[in-house]
């Protein structure tokens, strides 16, 4: 007769292995598009378009990357201009959206005022409008204002796009910071302003950091509005730059994938840097016994 404990142990081990295999497959599925983009950026178009697909790359080269940076006329695109535009527009609009989000989120979390819930609902409703539906009205508006194809125009549009979200997210984090803490800080000698920066802000930092990441990535990857509101190297961002690889009858898939990789790297780096601020549960131990 088999020992009961031995069989229980066996079952548990089998389950652990099955669990790991399952997780591996799921992760593979999730990562596959990313891996495929990186691979495609290194393979000739023939291999990318091959039917049946060539799963194992036969020849790898960095030609696409070299071409991309080698200037117009030699298969290159103004990638540095696009990169600069993307960076300026994304960083500035993120900073503004987070600043407004902190002020608004704090107000919604801490104060009572007339029309609070309808204002909050109104902010959320703006998120229901698809960006593409706004592009035409926004285009006309920007043309009249003369801010088409400018950084400021793009920054304005992205701030408006992100503010409802940052307010909503940061509001939730300020709600988790007990009110007693700000009061204790005021009794300890802080002004209202000091109490915010010394006590409430550090505790809501994970939320503010997440809001910043999300806002940044939204701007960094946004295509629908940018494709309408930008015209030239003055303001074209990287996602719009991808279109440079489409010609009338051909699409340079390899070049497009290479640019996509170039786009992904800064976004990944930033997320990696900010994620250490995302530690939750900082408020534990503040109140109650």
């Amino acid at each position, binding site marked *: 007769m088999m020992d009961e404990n031995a069989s229980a142990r066996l079952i548990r081990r089998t389950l652990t292995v099955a669990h790991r295999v399952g997780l591996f497959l799921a992760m593979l599925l999730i990562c596959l598009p990313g891996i495929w983009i990186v691979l495609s950026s290194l393979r000739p178009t023939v291999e990318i378009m091959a039917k049946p697909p060539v799963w194992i790359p036969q020849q790898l080269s960095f030609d696409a990357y070299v071409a991309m940076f080698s200037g117009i006329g030699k298969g290159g695109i103004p990638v540095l201009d696009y990169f600069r535009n993307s960076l300026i527009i994304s960083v500035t609009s993120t900073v503004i959206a987070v600043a407004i989000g902190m002020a608004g989120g704090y107000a919604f979390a801490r104060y009572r005022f007339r029309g609070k819930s309808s204002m909050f609902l109104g902010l959320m409703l703006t998120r229901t409008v698809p960006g593409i539906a706004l592009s035409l009205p926004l285009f006309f508006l920007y043309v009249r204002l003369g801010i088409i194809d400018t950084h400021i125009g793009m920054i304005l549009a992205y701030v408006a796009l992100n503010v409802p979200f940052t307010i909503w997210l940061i509001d939730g984090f300020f709600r988790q910071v*007990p009110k*007693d*803490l700000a*009061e*204790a*800080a*005021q*009794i*300890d*000698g*802080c*002004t209202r302003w*000091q109490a915010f920066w*010394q*006590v409430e802000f*550090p*505790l809501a930092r994970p939320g503010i950091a997440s809001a910043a990441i999300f806002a940044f990535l939204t701007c960094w990857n946004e295509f629908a509005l940018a494709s309408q509101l930008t015209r030239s190297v003055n303001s074209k961002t990287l996602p719009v730059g991808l279109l440079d690889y489409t010609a009338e009858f051909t699409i340079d898939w390899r070049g497009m994938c290479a640019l996509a990789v170039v786009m992904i790297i800064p976004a990944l780096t930033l997320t990696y840097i900010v994620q250490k601020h995302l530690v939750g549960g*900082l*408020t*534990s*131990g*503040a*109140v*109650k*016994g």
Partner: protein
Amino acid sequence: MATVSLKKLTKRYGNIEIVHGIDLEIADREFIALVGPSGCGKSTTLRMIAGLEDISGGAIDIGGRVVNDLPPRSRNISMVFQSYALYPHMTVRENLGFSLKIAGAAKDDMDRRVAEASAILGLDELLERRPSQLSGGQRQRVAMGRAIVRDPDVFLFDEPLSNLDAKLRTQMRTEIKKLHAKVKSTVIYVTHDQVEAMTLADRIVIMRSGYIEQVGTPDEVFSRPATRFVAGFIGSPPMNLHEATVSGGRLVFSGGDSLPLPGQFKPRTAAGDKVVFGIRPDDFYPTGHGLSAGGETEVHQVELPVSITEPLGNETLVFAEFNGADWVSRMLNPKPLKAGDRIGMSFDLSRAHLFSAETGKSLRS
């Protein structure tokens, strides 16, 4: 060094008045407890003194200075919150020194004062920990330490012990009392626990529905409650309170049973008066098992059935049925009793209380 005086202090939220113009004089270094059921306005009063709530009327004076519109930081007070409100992102040392850091104190001065407070409260071992790594009692001590470091004129405590378990609460109660003896500041202590108030305070302020019912020493509020509410609120188990009508020199209860009208109340009542008769469990006892060994002047004895007993070891609470209700009595040197036993019970009427049924005010002179 600070007296605190409240003059016609009022708090309104919109049209609803929460605190109705209370007056209170607190002496320097006095330990005052504000006690009352929840919603009586005691915490609001404390928060107004702290400056965390605006006042709607009247005046607050701390150390001879009117502070009505001053922000909390300008009042030289410190406060211990019910939730402790420790800063979770700072170590115990940083929590203790936070107020000094904000005030821009010198590093060595800060270290010295933190060390002093930590020594008083036995926090030396915990200084580098964060609040989340502390037990409830330790957090409580850090919260008190943070208050001491400021060396304030007035300490405010907002139900500081209510999150602790019963054993720790008794222990911290003693520590707070010791602390007051050491730091000699004025203390205003809010609690809903009358035992805390009785054990800690020099004087107790009993509040109800935004009014002060009585201010007095623990002995005064226990022995000479000014109102029926105070009589029922202070003391554990609570005073037996039953409505009666004065008739022919006796108190006739609704069930038909009666007791002689205590002598001291004879001049102050007339036949037909509706009153509330009150007697503490200590003054209503199984004959021979009472508090005072003889010398009572006005003892009335009856034989009553026992309905239930609660043995506590050194004493037993005996619920005796009188006039259709259970009256609680305290039996010292207890002997075993069981439900249904008929025993002789003594009412020490010289220590009984009588309140007007209409106003609730004591009829004692």
